[in-house]
């Protein structure tokens, strides 16, 4: 699946998007954050305060306990500051 990052999450990880293939045990958005955090220091830094991280699946907001099965694109970003 494709994972995309925005704002300071993107800056900390050092890339805007990537293709990942998490193991089957990674079932929810929160699981994916945990799995990504184990991939390197830059990920651990980006997700160090997982409580503030927002997520979207296929362009719609989702909660941490949402299942990721079937997702085409998962996005992680900080709280939004538009308007």
């Amino acid at each position: 699946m494709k994972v995309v990052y925005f704002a300071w999450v993107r800056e900390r990880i050092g890339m805007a998007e990537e293709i990942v293939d998490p193991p089957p045990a990674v079932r929810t958005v929160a699981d994916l954050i945990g799995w990504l955090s184990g991939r390197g220091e830059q990920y651990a830094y980006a997700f160090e305060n997982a409580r503030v991280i927002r997520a979207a699946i296929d362009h719609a907001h989702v909660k941490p306990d949402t299942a990721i099965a079937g997702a085409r694109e998962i996005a992680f970003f900080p709280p939004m500051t538009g308007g």
Partner: protein
Amino acid sequence: MTVPVTIRLQQADFDTAQEIAALSAGRTDIGAVVTFSGICRGGAGGDAISALTLEHYPGMAEAEIGRHAEEALARWPLTGLTIIHRYGRIEPGQNIVLVVTASSHREAAFQAAEFLMDYLKTRAPFWKQEEGASGTSWVDAASHDDAAAARWTKS
């Protein structure tokens, strides 16, 4: 009749008067037009900024604003709606966002515009980065914006 809805994300500036005219031209059913313009503040003293850069999530931004527009149309008897949100580098004094709501009477137009702005601030995937004397920094989300958006949630 289908209510005319215009949603645009663009780098270019917009002309508020032109957007109102486009929404109301040739119509006699509109009794009230409310506009909200969000403008880049320059700040003062240590908080002075030279520019904002707005990052957005293409695809989701359009989808999310579209969902909010649908909800506004379902909740209030609107006769027209225009939402324009800019992205890219914006300097103090320049426009960031425009919401235009039209209705037969003012109450719906006022309320829908306020609802849409509260949701744009907290749910539309945009992020502001400030350029100041000491470099660039991401703007923190304000808790009062979350509180403003929460008051529209039906209990």
